[in-house]
């Protein structure tokens, strides 16, 4: 019985450590790698990041304001294939697709009138299919010009 207790305890601790470690890595990736992609733009301070696997999609909804200059940065960790993203308006018209821009990690834009936009993010897949698909952190960050 003591042995079962020991095994259960170790398994629980290992699992908790694994989950904590993945989150910590994602946070570090967003702060150190992706935030730097914003360059001269001021990061708004919001945190949008998650562990995604090959082929998985995510969506983000945000209001952008007229006459502000924005930079959007979407980054995937090194072990992931390219991250594809599209920016759409309320009528689902595609305003930008990084697939047509060599899978660029950033997009600079400015609006003449404020709009709520939708971002569709997709982790592409490696050509060689694997039984164990790659997974890693994907971070989405916004920066704006302050002056």
């Amino acid at each position, binding site marked *: 019985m003591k042995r079962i207790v020991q095994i259960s305890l170790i398994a629980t601790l290992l699992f908790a450590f694994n989950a904590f470690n993945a989150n910590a890595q994602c946070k570090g990736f967003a702060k150190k790698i992706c935030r730097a992609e914003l360059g001269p733009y001021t990061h708004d301070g919001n945190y949008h990041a998650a562990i995604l696997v090959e082929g998985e999609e995510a969506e983000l909804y945000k209001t952008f304001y007229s006459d502000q200059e924005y930079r959007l940065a979407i980054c995937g960790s090194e072990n992931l294939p390219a991250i594809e993203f599209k920016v759409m308006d309320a009528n689902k018209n595609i305003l930008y697709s990084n697939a047509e821009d060599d899978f660029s990690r950033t997009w600079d834009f400015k609006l003449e009138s404020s709009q709520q936009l939708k971002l569709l993010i997709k982790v592409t897949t490696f050509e060689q299919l694997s039984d164990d698909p790659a997974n890693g952190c994907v971070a989405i960050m916004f920066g704006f010009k*302050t002056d």
Partner: protein
Amino acid sequence: MKNKILQKTVYVLISVFAFALLLNSCKSGAKEAEEDTVEIATIDEDILQDVNEAKKIFYSLPSPLESAMLIKSAGAEFNENLLNPTENTTRYTTNKQMALNLGIYTCNLSFASLYDQTQLVIDYMSAAKEMADGLGILDAISEETINRLEENVNNREVILDIVSETFLSSNSYLQDNQQPAIASIVLVGGWIEGLYIATQLVDMDDFDSDKLVGRIIDQKLSVGIMLDLLKDNNEHPSIPSIVEQMEGLKVIFDKINIKTTDIKPEIDEETNVTILKSTVETDMTPETFLELAGKVEEIRSSYVN
């Protein structure tokens, strides 16, 4: 007796492990979802479709820094009297109060930073730190951060970088530690504070041409996002009352019409910036504005008092 205790311990540990497994599958479970999909496919195509559609969705509200920046860019004057006094920190003892006021103080801090109010920047960073510490957010705002702030108090660029980094640390800590509801409450606090400051600064004698009025109307576009974000965390006991307040605010925002033309993207070849071209028509009356300002003041007052 010893055996019974041992048995109970095993049950507790197995339950914790099973719960942790469940949490993990919800959090980063695309890999697991894919494996599930294979099994489910043979059972029910509708369920399979639901699983495929269960993608990660982010609802992004304007951060406190963005809210403050929008007020500044509309040409508003700085008014210290509109900020939540730092002496009020001792009033906030519950997690809900501390989360709301972490957002509020971060908005005040951002506002002071953008207007180069050096002493206020330090005071509001300390107030935000008190709230973050109270919520158990480890090291988001360390003594080192405060010292760095003091050393660069005349460098706005560095200050804004510190403000943005500390807010990032706070909300990433909350997200990573299974407290997304608290993270969403922080955002609501900051958003309401920005809206409160903006509504208080509107010049009623110049209502039709005051740029702030346009910024306030724009917030209608974020109300739905905020409600979706809150409803995503509705199981948290602090959320339903906030949802109720925000729904009251939405009723007033719904009186405002916003009509925009289709967006036409055009790339500025020189700067490589895409201009999203469109025009907008809005129709907020002074009466609707005053009703909105009153409601915002009422909600904000319930957060700071």
